[in-house]
C-alpha cells in the first residue's frame, strides 16, 4: 500500500504543479497516470509544439513545460505510479480513500485530487481480427520499458511521431526493427523523419510502406505478423517477430472515474468554484481540464490556480484546526523534503564610508 497526503490522479501540468503547492504546505503527493511518462497531453500529444499563454513565457514547448514543472517540484519528492489507470475508489472508516489501479496497485490518502485532463489515454487499436488474443503476449500499444525489446525482433506500425521516435530508439536496442505504415509519407518532427531515413539507408530500420498488418501469427505469443503491401503490385507476406507495437495514437476517455459517484456534466466533474474545487464527495477534488463550473476555461494557467486553492483546503482536511498563513516563497524560501533549501540571498548591511 502506497500512503501519501494528497493522491493526484493525472500527472499533467496541473497535477505536477499541485506537488509544488502541496509541498509548500508540507504535504506529500503521489501521482497516478495511465501514460508511461509524466506530462499528460503535453508530453503525449504535442511535446514539440509551442504554448503561448503560460504567464511569463512568451513561448514554451509543451515538452519543456513538463520538464520545468518536474524540476520545480522535485524537492518535494513526488511518488509516481505510471502506466497504470486509477480504477476504483473506496472510502475508509477513518475518512481516507483507497484508490486501486488496473494493475492492482493500492494507494491510500486522506485527500484525492483528480487532475485527469480529458481522462485516461486509451490506445487506438488497429482493426486486426486476432489482435486481442495477443495483448501483453507480444502486442503492446505503448512502450513502457524499452529494455523488454533488447535483442528482440520488433515490428512497429504507425506514421506519427511516436512510431518514428520509438523506431529510432529501438534500432539501437532491438535485434531488428521493422517500421510499417499505410502511406509513404510520415507525419512527424522533421528531425525524426530525417533520422529514420538515415537509419533506413544504413540498414538499421526495415521500412515497409505503403503497407498494413492484416494478421498476427503465433499460438500463445507473437511469432510474426502478416503484412499486406500495396506498392506497384499488391503482395502479402509474413515477417517473423517477437513483438508487434501498433502506435496509432491515443484517445482520451473519462473512463472508470465516471463511475466513482461524482457529479458529471459535459464529460467533466462538477466542482465548487466559489471555494476550493471540491466535488460532491468531500475529500475528493477535481482540478484542471477535468472539472467544470460556470465560466470554466480549459487552460493550463487556470489549472495552476485551481491546484493552489485546492491545496489550502487539503491542508485543512489533513491538519484540522492547525493554524497556517500564506507565505511568500521569496520571503520564506523553500524547504524540500529531500533536505535541500532554496532561499533568497540576504541583503548586506554595511556602512558606506
Amino acid at each position: 500500500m502506497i500512503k501519501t497526503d494528497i493522491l493526484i490522479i493525472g500527472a499533467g501540468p496541473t497535477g505536477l504543479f499541485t506537488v509544488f503547492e502541496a509541498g509548500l504546505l508540507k504535504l506529500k503527493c503521489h501521482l497516478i497516470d495511465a501514460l508511461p511518462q509524466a506530462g499528460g497531453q503535453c508530453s503525449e500529444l504535442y511535446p514539440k509544439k509551442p504554448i503561448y499563454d503560460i504567464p511569463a513565457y512568451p513561448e514554451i514547448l509543451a515538452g519543456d513545460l513538463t520538464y520545468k514543472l518536474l524540476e520545480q517540484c522535485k524537492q518535494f519528492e513526488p511518488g509516481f505510479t505510471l502506466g497504470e489507470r486509477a480504477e476504483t475508489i473506496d472510502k475508509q472508516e477513518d475518512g481516507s480513500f483507497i484508490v486501486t489501479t488496473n494493475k492492482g496497485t493500492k494507494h491510500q490518502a486522506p485527500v484525492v485530487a483528480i487532475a485527469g485532463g480529458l481522462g485516461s489515454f486509451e490506445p487506438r487499436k488497429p482493426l486486426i481480427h486476432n489482435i486481442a488474443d495477443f495483448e501483453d503476449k507480444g502486442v503492446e500499444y505503448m512502450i513502457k520499458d524499452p529494455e523488454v525489446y533488447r535483442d528482440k525482433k520488433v515490428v512497429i506500425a504507425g506514421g506519427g511521431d511516436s512510431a518514428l521516435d520509438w523506431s529510432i530508439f529501438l534500432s539501437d536496442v532491438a535485434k531488428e526493427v521493422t517500421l510499417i505504415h499505410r502511406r509513404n509519407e510520415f507525419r512527424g518532427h522533421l528531425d525524426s523523419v530525417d533520422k529514420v531515413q538515415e537509419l533506413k539507408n544504413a540498414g538499421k530500420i526495415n521500412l515497409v510502406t505503403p503497407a498494413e498488418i492484416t494478421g498476427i501469427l503465433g499460438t500463445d505469443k507473437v511469432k510474426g505478423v502478416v503484412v499486406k503491401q500495396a506498392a506497384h503490385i499488391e503482395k502479402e507476406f509474413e515477417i517473423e517477430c517477437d513483438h508487434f507495437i501498433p502506435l496509432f495514437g491515443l484517445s482520451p476517455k473519462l473512463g472508470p472515474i465516471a463511475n466513482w459517484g461524482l457529479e458529471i456534466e459535459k464529460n467533466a466533474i462538477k466542482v465548487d468554484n466559489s471555494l476550493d474545487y471540491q466535488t460532491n464527495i468531500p475529500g475528493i477534488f477535481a482540478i484542471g481540464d477535468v472539472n467544470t463550473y460556470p465560466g470554466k476555461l480549459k487552460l493550463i494557467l487556470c489549472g495552476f490556480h485551481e491546484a493552489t486553492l485546492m491545496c489550502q483546503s487539503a491542508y485543512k482536511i489533513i491538519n484540522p484546526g492547525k493554524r497556517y498563513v500564506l507565505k511568500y516563497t521569496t520571503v520564506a524560501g523553500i524547504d524540500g523534503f529531500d533536505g535541500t533549501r532554496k532561499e533568497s540571498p540576504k541583503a548586506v548591511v554595511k556602512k558606506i564610508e
Partner: protein
Amino acid sequence: MEQDINITITDRDGVTHKVLAPTDMAMNLMEVVRSYELAPEGTIGICGGMAMCASCQCYVTSDTELPEMQDDEEAMLFEAYNVKDNSRLGCQIQMTPEMEGLVVELAPES
C-alpha cells in the same frame, strides 16, 4: 464588422441545426459546433484543433468550395475511422465568407 454566415450542421443524433457563424473571430467549424454545443464537450475538438485526433471529423454534403487539405489533415484522416470521400476535419475549415451555405454532418464518435 464582417457578415455572419449560414451553416447547416447535422449532429450525431441526426438532428439538423441551422446556425450563424461569425467570420471575424478566427473560428473554425469545430469551434462553431462547440460554441452551439451540438456535440458534448469532450467528444469533439479533443486535441484543441491541431488536426491530431479526428474527433471533429465531418462529412461535407454541400458543393461549397473548401480550403485545400493540408498534409497534416490528410495524414490524420488516413488514420481515422469511418472516413468517407467527403470527410474533412472541422478544425481545418475556417469560417470565411466563402463558407456561406456550408452543409455538414458530424461523423460518429470514435
